[in-house]
């Protein structure tokens, strides 16, 4: 199995299909657990898709934080309480942030652009390369995330990420959402609303919020499907990867910067 290519390997898929049929027919040997996955998300993440985003910085409004707020709500980040007696500065530096607003100024012309910055869902993610436990991983559909069950909190991935996309949880967490577990000692970052996507949604929380506020700066979709809105937009507009020089082939791209 190759880690570098996320093109679907049709031979392998065919083979797997047959194996599954064979396995169902066979008597289950002792020691092998067999669980039943229901039809709707039975197949899970598929390498036939690659999720990505296209962000139009011209449409991203100065001072708007709709996407950040929506993300905090969707992923239960707003449920976190400031530890007693912690200073503002420390709290703001340490609380998790999956998406943040970044303002860029062209030094020569003074032109200012705004953009939301989150995990770029690199095809070749440095955070995955450096993780000593395999906790930082890329799903078949291109979503990069942390498996908290195996994360040991070493924070190598935070060092390796060129986009400062990851946060470490420094404190005990009293309340979480069912779909967004969180606890002291693990690293986390934007997962492109994996739970929503797995449930069959086609938009992320930030995109919905941005649209609701009338900006339409964020477009989420399948980069591999030539008929998807995002693939069409990428084909017609000139877009950029941030730090394209690192050749990470990011799944999040920007226009008009």
């Amino acid at each position, binding site marked *: 199995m190759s880690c570098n290519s996320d093109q679907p390997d049709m031979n392998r898929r065919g083979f797997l299909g047959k194996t599954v049929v064979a396995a169902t027919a066979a008597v289950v*040997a*002792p*020691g*092998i*657990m067999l*669980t*039943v*996955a*229901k*039809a*709707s*998300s*039975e*197949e*899970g*993440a598929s390498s036939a898709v690659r999720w990505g985003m296209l962000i139009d910085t011209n449409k991203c409004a100065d001072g708007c934080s709709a996407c950040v707020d929506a993300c905090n709500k969707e992923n239960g980040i707003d449920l976190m309480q400031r530890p007693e007696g912690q200073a503002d500065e420390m709290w703001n530096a340490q609380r998790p942030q999956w998406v943040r607003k970044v303002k860029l100024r062209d030094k020569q012309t003074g032109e200012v652009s705004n953009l939301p910055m989150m995990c770029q869902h690199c095809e070749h993610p440095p955070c995955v390369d450096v993780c000593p436990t395999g906790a930082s*991983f890329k*799903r*078949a*559909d291109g*979503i990069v*995330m942390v*498996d*908290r*069950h195996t994360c040991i909190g070493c924070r190598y991935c935070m060092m390796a990420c060129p986009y400062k996309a990851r946060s470490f949880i420094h404190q*005990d*967490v009293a*309340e*979480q*959402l*069912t779909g967004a*577990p*969180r*606890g*002291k000692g*693990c690293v986390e970052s934007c997962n492109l609303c*994996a*739970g929503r*996507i*797995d*449930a069959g949604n086609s938009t992320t929380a930030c995109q919905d919020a941005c649209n609701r506020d009338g900006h339409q700066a964020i477009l989420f979709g399948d980069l591999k499907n030539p008929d998807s809105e995002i693939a069409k937009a990428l084909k017609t507009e000139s877009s950029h990867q941030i730090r394209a020089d690192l050749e990470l082939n990011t799944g999040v791209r920007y226009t008009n910067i």
Partner: protein
Amino acid sequence: MDRLTGIKRFAGVLVGGALLLFTTGAISETAVTEGSKAAGLDTCVAPTADIRRNHMDYLKHDRDLTVRKGIRETQYSLAECVECHAEKDDSGAYKPVNAEGQFCSSCHNYVAVSLSCFQCHRKTPELKSGSDTAMNQGGDFNVESLGLLQSLDKPVSLSRDELVRLHATVKGD
């Protein structure tokens, strides 16, 4: 190593079972709390004895499916344990499943196993309309003898076949 843990666990279950049978009154026959959804159901997502013995393996297996592969609708899920086993207090609010005397902690305290799931996972159901996931019916087990609410008058009696199935992972490793 694996085999040893398997044997130890098996022994643990036997000893635990024996203790349970000899102790009358001190320990209730079931950890299912009144006022939880589970109390009104005939059976768990698998026969109770199976779940008691193997839930940790099932949960671990299916969490990997969910986190790593994005397969959400698995037969076993911690969220579903919480959904069914959280008890409501008098004001109608849910008690955390890991609170003293509640479903998860009552057994884990009894067997002195520390429970770290809820350092990260939510301890109460989310207040939204019920989900229909993962409540698959178990196989062709004798629900009478394996039901949730076992009593001392009707101790668990397993056929050899059932025992083998319940302890499939022990035998295999």
